[in-house]
């Protein structure tokens, strides 16, 4: 199926920072059909550099980022469910972000774009879901940053969420996660071409952005998957260069992924979205994580992966234990995979089975507006 990105516009969005964004655009795609009772809608939430194109093939022939999970007979079954995916606030793939034109200014926002949070992103998504006329989502689900948004949905709009499926995610960034993000941000901002964020129409901070992406890619894989994929193999050569050329396969791969990223992602979006992730702490406004989850009435399915060291299982277990301590309906499974953090995108066999089983039950037992634990 060829998919079409659609757009919705909203007048204003109040932000956690106290500022208000005006005249916003939201890019989204939908797959499948909304049923008459409007009880089969699932909001799929993308990770850091994803976009609204989650499934199917776009006009450039590119498959969606979760195409292996969304489609007929797949985990998110387009024959039974109506799937919505939207580019996040602060992104660069059709939704308002730092590369969008600032209303009335005649130039992009750049660093004049206000700081944003995960809950700002979710607040904008809620406007879209209301706009689509859906009173209660069957599920919200996503991996990594998508999982943070799913959790935020369950807490911010409990009456609108039947089921919450955070995958390879966390209720708050650890020091290590913030550290990796900061390394990426510094690489971008130290690039002379960054020009204080006003590089649009000129030379892009390509070197900084690609180094940031290289670091990111390392954290998405595992020691084992890198050993399997690259080992110490040399790249198109028999001997070392004894110069700083590309010797190893893994160097070539990272450089390629880094340079490719520059063509599809905005450096300012990188800064804003990573900060939003770092700011995220579901327990910030409550005495404990369990207390902050008290409001949630969804059923939860929490999934982590054995080799994911960026969002390790203990972070998922923290969410699960907080939910269990308040007797919420929570299912947890740590899936076995060698793919590291990337597992939720690439190693989807078992993930598909359990998401299917869980969603099947949630659909059978859909509770409408009734709040219960």
């Amino acid at each position, binding site marked *: 199926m060829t998919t079409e990105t659609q757009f919705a516009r909203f007048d204003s969005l109040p932000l956690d920072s106290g500022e208000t964004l005006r005249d916003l655009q939201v890019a989204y795609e939908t797959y499948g059909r909304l049923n008459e009772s409007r009880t089969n809608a699932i909001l799929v939430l993308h990770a850091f550099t994803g976009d609204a194109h989650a499934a199917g093939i776009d006009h450039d022939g590119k498959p969606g980022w979760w195409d292996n999970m969304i489609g007929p007979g797949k985990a998110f079954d387009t024959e039974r469910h109506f799937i919505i995916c939207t580019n996040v606030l602060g992104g660069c793939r059709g939704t308002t972000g730092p590369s969008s034109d600032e209303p009335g200014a005649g130039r992009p926002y750049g660093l004049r774009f206000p700081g944003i949070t995960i809950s700002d992103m979710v607040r904008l998504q809620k406007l879209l879901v209301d706009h689509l006329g859906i009173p209660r989502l069957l599920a919200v689900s996503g991996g990594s940053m998508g999982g943070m948004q799913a959790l935020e949905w369950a807490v911010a709009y409990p009456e609108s969420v039947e089921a919450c499926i955070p995958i390879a995610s966390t209720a708050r960034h650890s020091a290590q996660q913030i550290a990796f993000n900061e390394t990426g941000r510094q690489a971008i901002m130290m690039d002379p071409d960054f020009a204080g964020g006003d590089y649009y129409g000129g030379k892009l901070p390509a070197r900084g952005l690609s180094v940031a992406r290289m670091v990111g890619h390392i954290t998405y894989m595992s020691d084992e998957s890198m050993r399997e994929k690259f080992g110490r193999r040399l790249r198109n050569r028999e001997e070392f260069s004894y110069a700083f050329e590309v010797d190893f396969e893994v160097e070539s791969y990272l450089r390629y992924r880094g340079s490719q990223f520059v063509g599809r992602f905005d450096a300012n979006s990188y800064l804003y979205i990573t900060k939003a992730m770092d700011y995220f702490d579901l327990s910030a406004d409550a005495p404990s994580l369990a207390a902050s989850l008290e409001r949630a009435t969804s059923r939860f399915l929490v999934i982590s992966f054995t080799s994911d060291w960026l969002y390790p299982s203990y972070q998922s277990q923290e969410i699960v234990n907080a939910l269990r*301590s308040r007797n919420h309906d929570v299912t947890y499974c740590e899936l076995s995979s060698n793919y590291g953090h990337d597992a939720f995108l690439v190693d989807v066999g078992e993930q598909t089975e359990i998401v299917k089983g869980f969603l099947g039950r949630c659909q059978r037992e859909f509770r409408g507006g009734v709040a219960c634990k």
Partner: protein
Amino acid sequence: MQVREVLGRSDYALISELIPEGARVLDLGCGDGSLLEWLKANKKVEARGVELKRELVQQAISRGVTVYQGDLENSLKEYPDGAFDYVILSQTLQELRQPLQVLQEILRIGRYAIVAFPNFGHWRVRLSHLFSGGAPRTKLFPYGWHDSPNVHFLTIEDFEESTRDQRWTVEKRMFLSGHTRGTAMPNLMAEVAVYLLRR
């Protein structure tokens, strides 16, 4: 439909008899979730399970059962007091390192505990040991000494003594030999014992 016809296990049949309609039930070591699935469908219980083995957890989720993947000796402390009406511990007691602590936790988080265990005092076990001189091997205890998951070998007598020591109230005790229920001299004749306990 009888639970034994569906699940093929007599201890499940007794357990399901003990559980009233609409109860909140936690099944520890719930396996593939078949008992909970049955209880949900036939007794409208609010079902939760704990299971360590990943493949079984996945099967339980596919059956639409709420299940937590974790080691049951370490995963009970999170549950609040009185979270469940019934907590089931079926054929697992003999595999626990700290069985009494687990039972105490069970009676903290549940109003009732349903405990089923294989009776090591059964006459076949005694004869096997007496005549072979080796660790007993029977239908109920089929393992070699080195590959058995069982770390404690308890009899009905032992369990009765523990309930007295711990001052737990035995609401009901039921004994099984094959699919036959109720035996005289249970410590000698029963293969499986099912207890309904409360604090």
